[in-house]
């Protein structure tokens, strides 16, 4: 497997995720972009594991476990906000300002 293209794809995915988080307003979409970034990192781990040993692949499982937990908590929070405010548009959710 070619290392260069793999890293390029993961970088592209990561960048997509970052811009999604920065530019989108919907909490669910932002959430999905975060997942995208996590998986971009996972791809990097797997790609590099071929050269640097199996530890990278091991990390992927950790990341997936944490991402699952994060998805549970994050979705629960988004649901709670939606019930409370009737919207998940982050522009309207700005009570914590100084």
């Amino acid at each position, binding site marked *: 497997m070619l290392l260069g293209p793999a890293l390029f794809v993961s970088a592209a995915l990561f960048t997509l995720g970052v811009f999604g988080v920065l530019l989108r307003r919907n909490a669910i979409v932002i959430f999905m972009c975060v997942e995208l970034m996590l998986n971009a990192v996972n791809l990097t781990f797997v790609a590099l594991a071929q050269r640097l040993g199996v530890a990278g692949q091991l990390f992927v499982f950790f990341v997936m476990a944490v991402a699952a937990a994060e998805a549970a908590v994050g979705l629960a929070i988004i649901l709670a906000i939606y019930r409370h405010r009737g919207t998940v548009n*982050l*522009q309207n959710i*700005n009570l*914590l300002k*100084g």
Partner: protein
Amino acid sequence: MSASALQLLWLVPALPLAGFVLNGALALWRPNAKAAVSTIGVGALVLAFAAATAAVAEFARLHQAAPLVFRYWEWMPVGDLRLDFALQFDQLSAVMALVVTGVGALIHLFSVGYMHEDAGYARYFAYLNLFVFFMLMLVLGASFPVMFVGWEGVGLCSYLLIGFWFTEQINADAGKKAFIVNRIGDSGFLIAMFLIFRATGALDFGPVFGRAQAVFPAAGTTITAVTLLLFLGCAGKSAQIPLYTWLPDAMQGPTPVSALIHAATMVTAGVYLVARCNVLFALSPLGSAAVAGVGALTALFAATIALKQWDIKRVLAYSTISQLGYMFLGVGTGAYAAGIFHLVTHAFFKALLFLGSGSVIQALHHAYHATHSHDDAQDMRNMGGLRRYLPWTATLMWIATLAIAGIPPLSGFFSKDAILGAAFALATAEPIWYVYWAMGVAAALLTAFYMTRLMLYTFHGPTRTGEQERQHLHEAPWVMTGPLLVLGLLSLSGGLLNLPELMGGGAFLHHWLEPVTALADRMRPAVELSRVVEWALLSGAVGVAALGIFGAVRLLKPEALLPARLAPPETGLGRLLWKKWYVDELYDAIIVRPLQWLAREVLWKSIDARLVDGLIVNGSATASRALGWLGSRLQTGEVGFYVVLFVVGVLLLVGGAVR
């Protein structure tokens, strides 16, 4: 030989302290148990006097030259300084302890009659006992710090007793004035102690005086500074120029307090201090000359003011200042025995004069009280002819007056003459003492004059007290005239203590004190007057005193005097003297007001209100609030904004790490 009485020396100060504790407890919980208060208050003093007498008798039998030091416990072990709480008994302490407890006991007894109607009776005796305790610590202490404890303690009691009737503003102010003026002097005492410790490494009297000659070069800067600073302390405590102004105001306290604290004992503490430190003063001719010069000047200056005062107690107050000046002239001259001799005789006759004036004031006060008059019971213009109503008081006060004026063979004649003689003798070696001597003689003339004036206006001529009041005037009870009688006998015979050798006497006190002053006596030039000169001085002194009395009798017209309500204001020089040379006003203008201005305008309004409160306290609050406001602008509440910042931050960090 056993020294049992001396082993019990601690009892002498402990008894008045116990009296203070008991009377203080009674003042708090049983203020009306007057019989118990009197028994404790007077009893403590009588027992202390007995203990002191026994100790002195024992000490005299030992023929001890060096002071006996009793160490009780380690007080301040700090670094190189190992200070014990110790009492010391020597010839000088013996004299002072006898005077303090003896005269103190008489005045306590007098107070039983004088203060009997007062609501604060128990409090009064508690303070008075506490005062005697501190005074005994002062004269019995074996080191400068122990003495300083007593020194400050008597100042505290003086403050408490001057302001005893503190519900009147004027009394409270007088107490504060005494306390504050004394602080100025005490700062000098403290600095002198520091200098002594730095030079000698000790604060106990024995080592300090023992090492003084080796450590301090004679007439050096350090020793001169030490003596002048010590004398500043003395000037505060003993009411000498320039710090004398508190003593006349101190007359706001009860009259027995004036007799005990402000005439007989506390104000003589400065004289005692100079006599105690005789070695230090002998090493500094300038310091000694300052003591003698200030003393002579004070003696003359205060006597001029006394000429025109109308308040009977203020006359006596200025007289006290003047007589204290004599004592300082004596100890500054190196005639320590003469100074202490005058201290003792002055304690007798001035206590008698004050207590006698108390008896007069109380008689008038009762009379005015009975007729609801608001006239001043202390103004001599409201008195006159009182010898018909108060015969005992009048007779005894005449004895004291003749004694203070210096009429032989009363006590004051011998002590005053001893001082003037010593000053004249030293003048043959140091001519400046001729000036001091002349001032002393002039003050003696004025003393005779103003004291005769006081007696004439109070006891002779027509009675200026109102018609109705006259029926209420009567002699004081025996509990008051009894102490007067004893003091009268002492004023008559006090001269026997130190009859000069010129008259075939033994100069007992002089020889008694010789071990204390031996070292200093050797350092001073030996001066002897021929017998002819001594006799001439003696007769001159008697002539001056007689002239003063005769002049007062001829010049003053008690029958022409008007009661205080009708009296016209003074004019010319009389007004200047009546207004006390405007010294209080002068101090007010050049010291008090500038200080108040400094305190209010600079220290309070500028430094405290603007700098501390405004800039530092409120300024730091304003600065943190401004910073907080800036920080809060970042908290928009929009997650997107935070994320942008976060990403930018990560890029910066990563960029920095990669580069």
